[in-house]
């Protein structure tokens, strides 16, 4: 991140370093409050992916890849998809697929609504990492075409 050769100018780097962290936190907030306020796993995951895309645009491909490599990203995506299926299969302990077996809790609390927050977190992980992988693949394709 220290070499100034790759990526954009210093202004873009400094401001995007701040905005990317804020975007990451905002995406997590949207995911965790998905059962209380508008939002949810999909929107929050896309916001998290956007903060990583911002890092790629400002610092170049290598800086973002050092934070989250392509292999780790694709592994995380597989884990997200599997965990969602496992939460669905967990419902069979109560008798039906995707049954809300955990404790409901009182409404308007962060820890309430049984499996819905867990589903939100898993879908947010999967969507965020998945869209990041799509963007990364497009960028790598463009770079490799330039090299030829």
């Amino acid at each position, binding site marked *: 991140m220290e070499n100034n050769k790759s990526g954009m100018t210093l202004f873009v780097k400094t401001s995007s370093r701040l905005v990317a962290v804020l975007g990451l936190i905002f995406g997590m907030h*949207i995911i965790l409050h*998905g*059962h*209380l*306020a*508008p*939002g*949810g*796993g*999909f*929107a929050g995951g*896309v*916001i998290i*992916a*956007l903060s990583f*895309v911002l890092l790629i*645009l400002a610092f170049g491909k290598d800086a973002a890849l050092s934070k989250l490599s392509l292999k780790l990203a*694709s592994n995380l*995506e597989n884990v997200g*998809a599997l965990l*969602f*299926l496992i939460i*669905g299969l967990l419902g069979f302990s109560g008798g039906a*697929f*995707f049954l*809300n077996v955990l404790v*409901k*809790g*009182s*409404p*308007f609390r962060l820890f*309430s*609504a*049984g*499996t*819905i927050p867990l*589903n*939100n977190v898993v*879908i947010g992980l*999967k*969507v965020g990492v*998945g*869209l990041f*992988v*799509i*963007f990364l*693949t*497009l*960028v*790598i*394709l*463009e770079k*490799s075409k330039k090299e030829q």
Partner: protein
Amino acid sequence: MELHILLIFMIFAAILAIEVKDLLSSVIAMAAVGFALCLAFLILKAPDLAITQLVVELLCLIILIKATIKKDLPLVIEGRWLFNTVSTLVFIIVFLFFSYIAMKELPVFGNPTMGLVRRYLLEEGVNKTGAVNIVSAVILDFRAYDTLGEVAVLFTSIIGIMAILRRKGRKEILEEDTNGK
């Protein structure tokens, strides 16, 4: 009233996106259509859809610009002017005819047909799931099986993109590894 202004704005922006020569301007005009759609969702009291529309539009805008900014799409119009105009007109007439038939079957705006389901969800949704956000309760509890299908679709699309766009095939990587050792 605001809805009609937004719809007229969206139609003009969409026409602009087709007619403009520069690819970057066309992408930005499409983003204007998306933002107007986001505002329309907000006016129709659907904040969940508005958030999703906003972030997806933003991401698609960046991805489209990043992926297409260096390439020019070849557009061949010369020589086939008459054929293109006639086929476009025929398609527009057929599309308007069938959409008129389909529009007659739709329920009146603001009066959905499934009133019973809506009332049940609004009254019993909080008690059944404990989630205050009914949209979240529907897509992750009542209709979670559909969401599993969506997750499978996204998963398959990412596998397809990585398989098509990767730089080297698995065989080449294996051969390079064995040669290097």
